[in-house]
């Protein structure tokens, strides 16, 4: 245990302090400077990138602070980088959107930063109170930015729906946390792991309620109902945030709480994770087939992808966690790329978002169509694109852990999923062209180029990501 004696002992939490102070400073700049907030949002993007660079370079390897509530390890570092980079990507995608849609306001950037701060707290949380506080900090800011376009009924609906259901799931999670505390007498994950050896039905009840909260946040079936409506209604960059950074942080919470706090009752939680995983993969594949709206399609796609990521967690081994981490990194790259495309579908000054609007994209915008096609093949998991390797590692871990049925069902549902991804490729390449879209803004082009290149070239040089994921997974065991 590390007691706080001097200011320098706070060094491990420096990125979080910078984020919190930065958000407040940016708010003050926005209030005093007046104006529409373009500058503040640009500065927010830079702050997120700077903190990401700091975490990458300076974060120490294995320390804890505040009596073990805040843990810094390879796992935290890896996921914090993911969350920060996807938040920065979201901000890059937002800059032009906010301006052209006349939704520019200076609170947007600071709210994204504060939400990301919540994610960092969540990723580093090693006891139940820190976990809950991080979760609430992340979610509260999300409710606000989901409803930020108040002139749009759908956006307001999205915010309200997310808020009400999110509050319900937080209640479930707290109930679970109180049961776990009641039956183990401690809130720290390490303490719970020690006390959980005795088992008992009360602890399992608590675990189930905790899982309800986790599954809601990663939108796994059967707690996914809010996802399509919220994803469709929220402003598109906010949806990107939901589908990328939020997923990374929530998976981190899920994995750390399960692996660190409940290793003694692996058999019990494994059943739940397997069940949730199969349902999510199946629903994500079958329900997406009928969708006409790209944002709704991405919502179902993200439900399915969370199912695939949970396959790795179900394995419960270091190899499985490594699979989850690789999966999340590649999934985020694919999602950011796909949303960059959706954000560039602007025709006659309005954003369009149905699949039919992409018709004949290959003839009007060949580069865009090529990148989107590659991303869709990757989402479907076709080699040699990155999406294939993501699935490969989780299924391999599941097979090594003896979960053959889960792996087979996963492969089957990914074949079903391939249908609707490839249907979009068909629309882009073989249908009659529609009028061209407005040219893509440069910030969106940048995100699309990075995401596309990661997907195309991952197979050539996978070592850094896989190495980092292996080290991160090891630090949990």
């Amino acid at each position, binding site marked *: 245990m590390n007691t*706080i004696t001097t200011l320098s002992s706070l060094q491990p939490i420096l990125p979080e302090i910078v984020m*919190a102070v930065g958000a*407040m400073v940016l*708010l003050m700049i926005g209030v005093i400077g007046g104006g529409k907030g373009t500058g503040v949002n640009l500065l927010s993007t830079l702050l997120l990138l700077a903190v990401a660079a700091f975490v990458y370079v300076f974060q120490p390897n294995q320390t804890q*602070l*505040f*009596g073990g*509530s*805040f843990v810094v390890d390879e796992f935290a570092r890896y996921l914090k980088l993911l969350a920060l980079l996807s938040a920065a990507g979201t901000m890059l995608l937002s800059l032009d959107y906010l301006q052209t849609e006349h939704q520019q*306001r200076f*609170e947007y950037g*600071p*709210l994204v930063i*504060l*939400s990301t*701060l919540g994610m960092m*707290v969540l990723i580093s949380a090693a006891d139940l*109170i*820190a976990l809950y*506080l*991080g979760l*609430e*900090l992340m979610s*509260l*800011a999300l*409710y*606000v930015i989901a*409803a*930020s376009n*108040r002139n749009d009924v759908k956006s307001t609906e999205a*915010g309200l729906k997310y808020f009400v259901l999110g509050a319900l799931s937080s209640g479930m999670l707290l109930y679970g946390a109180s049961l776990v505390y*009641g*039956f*183990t*007498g*401690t809130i720290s994950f390490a303490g719970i792991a020690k*006390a959980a050896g*005795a088992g*008992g*039905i*009360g*602890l399992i009840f608590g675990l189930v309620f905790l899982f309800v909260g986790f599954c809601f946040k990663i939108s796994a079936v059967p707690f996914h109902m809010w996802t399509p409506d919220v994803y469709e209604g929220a402003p598109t960059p906010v949806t990107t945030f939901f589908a990328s950074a939020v997923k990374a942080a929530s998976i981190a919470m899920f994995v750390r709480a399960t692996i660190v706090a409940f290793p003694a009752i692996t058999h019990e939680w494994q059943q739940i994770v397997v069940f949730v995983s199969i349902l999510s993969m199946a629903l994500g594949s079958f329900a997406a087939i009928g969708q006409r709206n790209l944002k709704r399609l991405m919502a179902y796609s993200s439900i399915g992808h969370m199912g695939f990521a949970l396959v790795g967690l179900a394995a419960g081994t270091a190899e499985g966690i490594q699979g989850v981490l690789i999966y999340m990194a590649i999934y985020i790259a694919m999602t950011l790329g796909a949303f960059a495309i959706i954000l560039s579908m602007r025709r006659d000054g309005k954003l369009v978002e149905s699949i039919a609007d992409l018709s004949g994209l290959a003839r009007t915008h060949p580069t865009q169509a090529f990148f989107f096609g590659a991303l869709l093949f990757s989402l479907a998991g076709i080699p040699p694109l990155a999406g294939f390797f993501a699935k490969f590692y989780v299924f391999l871990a599941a097979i090594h852990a003896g979960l053959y049925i889960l792996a087979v069902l996963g492969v089957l549902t990914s074949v079903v999923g391939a249908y609707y991804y490839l249907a979009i490729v068909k629309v882009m390449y073989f249908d009659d062209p529609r009028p061209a879209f407005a040219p893509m803004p440069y910030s969106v082009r940048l995100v699309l180029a990075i995401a596309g290149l990661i997907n195309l070239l991952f197979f050539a040089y996978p070592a850094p990501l896989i190495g980092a994921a292996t080290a991160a997974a090891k630090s949990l065991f």
Partner: protein
Amino acid sequence: MIVQAIFFYLFACICVGSAFMVIASRNPVHSVLFLILAFVNAAGLFVLMGAEFLAMILIVVYVGAVAVLFLFVVMMLDVDFAELRQGFFQYLPFGMVIGGIFLAELVLVVGAWTLGSNLPLESPIPAHITNTEVIGLVLYTRYVYFFELSGIVLLVAMIGAIVLTLQHRVRVRRQKISSQVSRSRATAIEVRTVRPGQGLEGNA
């Protein structure tokens, strides 16, 4: 000791009675007032247990903020409670089933479960410091992280409330107090000479 028992039963009886009246009374305003009564009596019970900090927090937060907010909502929103009650008998069987499940679970809890073996049943607090002092000792040291995080959560809530409600409409006439106050005689009054029989012309 006997005084303590008398007060315990007094507070407990009023608490349970007013809790019952919260759901039984027909007028929602009365319900909220009974809720406040229940809170105050619960605070009394806390004082009897020696947890004076919790008692004061209960009054400040629940009575002072939450219940008053409730009262405002009940009085300002035009909720037709008679209409809300209409589906009562329609939903009764379903409600009974759910209630039955909860009752069965409660029986299970009370009957079969035991608390964790290493759960500290009595916290060793030195007799010479009060519990408010104990909270003060750990709140800014051991739990400073949680304390600061809660502060940031509240900050986000405040920003959110402002973002979602403050709207600068273009065509709203606003009162500019500063310009009103800084009016001088020169800008406010104009002396015109009016000729007899002609009146003022132009925009006077």
